[in-house]
C-alpha cells in the first residue's frame, strides 16, 4: 500500500545493502533524485538492473556501490560511453564489477515475465549473436510445436524498483504518461516499489480509461520530488537538459572531477535541489 514519505525515508526503508535494484526509465522519467538519495545513504554491494544504465548508474558505480550490473545498453544516451562504468570494468576502479549483458528485447521481456509471475521469458532472439556465449543465463528451448530453437532468459524479479512518474492521486495511485518505457513491468516485477512524483492531485477522475496507472496497492512508498528526473525529463512538466548529458562526458572522464562533482551536487544536497534544476526547463 502506498505511503507518502520523504524521499530519504522512502529510500532508507526499501533499499538495503546487497539488494537487486532497478532504477528504471527509458531516457524519459529517469529517477535521478531517488538514485542520488541512494548515493547519499551509501548502500553497498548492489546488483544494478536496468536496460539502459546511464548517468545514474555511472554515478553509483563510480561511488563503488555496485558489485554487478545487468543491462542491455550502457551508454550516455546521444553522447557516448559511460566512463565510470568503463573504469570499473576495464580497471576495476574503484572496484571490479560483474556484468550480465542482454539485448533490449530480452531485458524488456524479462521484466514482463517477472510481472507475469513467470520464471523465464521466451522469444525469437539472439540468433547468430555472441551474447549467449558470454552470458550463461541465455539458454535455448525447442518449441514443442515447430521445433524452432527459441531464446530464453530468466525473469527479472528485483528486490526493489524505483521509478519517477508524473502524478499520484491522494490514494497513492500513480499515473505515467508519454514514453512509458518499461516502468510498469519493472514495478510489477519487484518485491517493493518506490515512486517519486512531480505532484499529487486529488483524483484521476475524468482521465482517459486506458492510461498507464499503477494502483496504490502495488506501491510501497511515494515521495513527492518536483524535478526529480533531472537531467532526464518529465513529459508535460519540463524538458530534457541535454547540456547536462553532454557535460557528464567531461565530468565522468576524470576520477577527481567526478568525486568533486558528487560531493558538491549529490552528497552536499537534498532532494529539494531538483526543483531548482528544472526551473529553466519548464514548458
Amino acid at each position, binding site marked *: 500500500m502506498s505511503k507518502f514519505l520523504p524521499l530519504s525515508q522512502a529510500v532508507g526503508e526499501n533499499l538495503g545493502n546487497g539488494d537487486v535494484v532497478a532504477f528504471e526509465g*527509458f*531516457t*524519459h522519467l529517469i529517477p535521478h533524485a531517488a538514485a542520488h538519495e541512494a548515493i547519499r545513504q551509501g548502500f553497498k554491494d548492489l546488483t544494478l538492473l536496468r*536496460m*539502459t544504465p546511464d548517468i545514474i548508474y555511472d554515478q553509483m558505480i563510480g561511488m563503488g556501490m555496485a558489485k554487478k550490473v545487468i*543491462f*542491455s*545498453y*550502457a*551508454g550516455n*544516451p*546521444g*553522447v557516448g*560511453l*559511460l566512463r565510470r*562504468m*568503463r573504469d570499473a*570494468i*576495464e580497471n576495476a576502479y574503484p572496484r571490479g564489477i560483474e556484468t550480465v*549483458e542482454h*539485448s*533490449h*528485447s530480452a531485458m*524488456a*521481456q524479462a*521484466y*514482463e515475465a517477472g510481472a507475469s509471475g513467470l520464471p523465464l521469458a521466451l*522469444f*525469437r*532472439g*539472439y*540468433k*547468430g*549473436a*555472441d*551474447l549467449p556465449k*558470454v552470458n550463461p543465463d541465455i539458454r535455448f528451448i525447442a518449441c514443442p510445436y515447430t521445433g*524452432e*530453437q527459441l531464446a530464453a532468459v530468466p525473469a527479472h524479479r528485483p528486490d526493489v524498483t524505483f521509478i519517477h512518474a508524473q502524478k499520484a492521486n491522494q490514494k497513492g495511485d500513480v499515473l505515467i504518461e*508519454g*514514453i*512509458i*518505457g*518499461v516502468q*510498469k*513491468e519493472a514495478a510489477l516485477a519487484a518485491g517493493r516499489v518506490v515512486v517519486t512524483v512531480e505532484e499529487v492531485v486529488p483524483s484521476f477522475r475524468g482521465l482517459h480509461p486506458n492510461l*498507464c496507472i499503477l494502483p496504490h496497492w502495488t506501491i510501497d512508498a511515494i515521495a513527492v520530488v518536483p524535478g526529480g528526473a533531472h*537531467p532526464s*525529463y518529465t*513529459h508535460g512538466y519540463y*524538458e*530534457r*537538459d*541535454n*547540456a*547536462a*548529458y*553532454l557535460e557528464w562526458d567531461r565530468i565522468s572522464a576524470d576520477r577527481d572531477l567526478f568525486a568533486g562533482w558528487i560531493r558538491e551536487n549529490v552528497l552536499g544536497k537534498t532532494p529539494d535541489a531538483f526543483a531548482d534544476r528544472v526551473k*529553466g*526547463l519548464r514548458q
Partner: protein
Amino acid sequence: MTDFTPNEMMTIAAARQLSNDDVCFVGIGAPSAACNVARLTHAPDITLIYESGTIGTAPDVLPLSIGDGELCETALATVSVPEMFRYWLMGGRISIGFLGAAQLDRFGNINTTVIGDYHHPKVRLPGGGGAPEIATSCGEIYITLKQAQRAMVERIDFYTSFGHGDGGDHRQRLGLTTRGPTLLITDLAIWRPDSESKEFVVRSLHRGVTRDMVQDTCGWTVRFSDDLEETPPPTAEELGTLRDLQARTAAAHAGARRAA
C-alpha cells in the same frame, strides 16, 4: 550543388533508399537524419519508429536521445518498451532497421560491444541495445558507417548482431527468414551484398571519391562492382532539407543548454 560533406552525402544517400511504404526502426545519428530527410522530401508518409515506443513520429528537430520528448509529442502512438519489442519489432512489422557499428566485417556482422576480449576488454563499448533482434527481425537492414580501418575490419571482436555470418546461405541455415544487411552506406560509397557470397561490394562511389580512398579506409580487400557508378550528388532540395533540419536541431539543443 557541389559543396557538400561526406557525412551529408552519406545521410542523403541513405534517405533516397526509403519510400512512403517503409516502416523504419530508426537509430540516433545518421539513420535518424536520413529517415527524417526522406520524410521531409520524397517520402512524407514513411513511418518512423524509435525503440522508446514512439510509432509514426515526425519530429521537427532531430532527437539527441532515442527517447526525446519531441518523438512522443509528434507520434501517432507511444507504446511500452516491451510492446515495442514484442508486437512491432519481433512481430515482424518493421520493413527496414538501421544499424551503426563500431566494427563491421564484409558480411555485415556488427560489433558494438567490446574491443578486445569480452571478459578483459581493451574498450568496453555501450553494447547491443536492440541490435541483436533488430538484425534478425526487420525485413532488411541498412548500415551506415563512416569508413575507417579500425571500423571496417577483417574479423570483428564480437558478434553483437548477426549479418550474413560467414556469407552465402548462413542466415537460412540459422532459420532466419529476413534478408539481413542489404545496404551499406558510408561517407565514401554505397555497398550492396553480392547475391551469392553476401560479401559487400561497392556499387557506387560518391562524387570525388576514388577506389583508393575506399580501400585505404577499409580493413578488408574491397570488391568493386563491374558497373561501378557515381552516386548522384545531393540536390539543392535534399541538402537544404538536411541543413535546415540540422540548424533547427542545433538551435533547439543550444536552447536547452542555455536554459540549464
